């Protein structure tokens, strides 16, 4: 064996070995009774933006790319999706308390307004998820209006 055999063989062997570590990708579920979009309270245009730019991480309907099944990138994808769903999962939207829905919408507004979401590392790979100015405005308007509606409902519940 020549020296380059070792130089190449080591990393390749390591790469093969780490494939044996089971991936921990959060499961994909397509039917979600508590889903934000499936519950029909979002108009079509906003729904399609959410689907393209947010749902891959912030819902149970993740569309995993091929590299999410290959270590080590699979570990990163698994971690990102897990954390994203913990923070906000549109698939279980209706299970969230009204007051916490307000909080989530407020977060959405701030994150999208400041350009933190969708994350740059994500849109570099998923270019279609990048929001243009108009889409950004649509999301902001939607978040604000929905907050007003929920605040009204909450208020009338208080009085009733």
């Amino acid at each position, binding site marked *: 064996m020549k020296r380059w055999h070792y130089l190449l063989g080591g990393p390749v062997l390591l790469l093969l070995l780490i494939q044996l570590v089971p991936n921990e990708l959060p499961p994909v579920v397509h039917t979600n009774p508590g889903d934000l979009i499936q519950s029909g309270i979002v108009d079509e245009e906003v729904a399609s933006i959410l689907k393209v730019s947010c749902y891959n991480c912030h819902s149970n309907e993740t569309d995993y790319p091929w590299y999410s099944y290959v270590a080590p990138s699979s570990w990163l994808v698994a971690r990102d999706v897990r954390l994203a769903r913990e923070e906000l999962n549109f698939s279980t939207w209706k299970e969230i308390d009204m007051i916490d829905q*307000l909080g989530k919408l*407020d977060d959405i507004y701030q994150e999208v307004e400041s350009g933190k979401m969708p994350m740059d590392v994500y849109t570099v790979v998923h270019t279609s998820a990048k929001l243009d100015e108009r889409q950004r405005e649509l999301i902001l308007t939607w978040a604000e209006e929905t*907050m007003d509606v929920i605040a009204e409902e909450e208020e009338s519940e208080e009085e009733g």
Partner: protein
Amino acid sequence: MAALIGLLFFQGTTKPELENYPVHPMMAPDMPANVKTIVEQKCYGCHNADSKNEKGKAKLDWDEFEASKKSKQMAAKGKISEVLREGEMPPKKFLEMKPEGKLSEAELATLIDWSASKKKGAN
């Protein structure tokens, strides 16, 4: 339509209440004096518009809170309530330098009661 009528009704009924209040017009209906006192002593130092604590200011700015509309205030209160119940505020690191900044049991209870006051209807 019903929501629109509801909105008109809501605005129509709360305005007179605002005018009757002698204190800060935005703060008055939502923030009782005892809550305001605690906030000023224990929270406002970092959570204000001119705060040098960028993270604290970004998360919650009381000056902005006062001026913001109902839905925003309710959202903020929900988050305040959660953070307080988790014991995350004031931050541990901050208390190491300034132990007197800690909320007393009674103060904590007052703030939690206030911030969760719109939570009755939930569940």
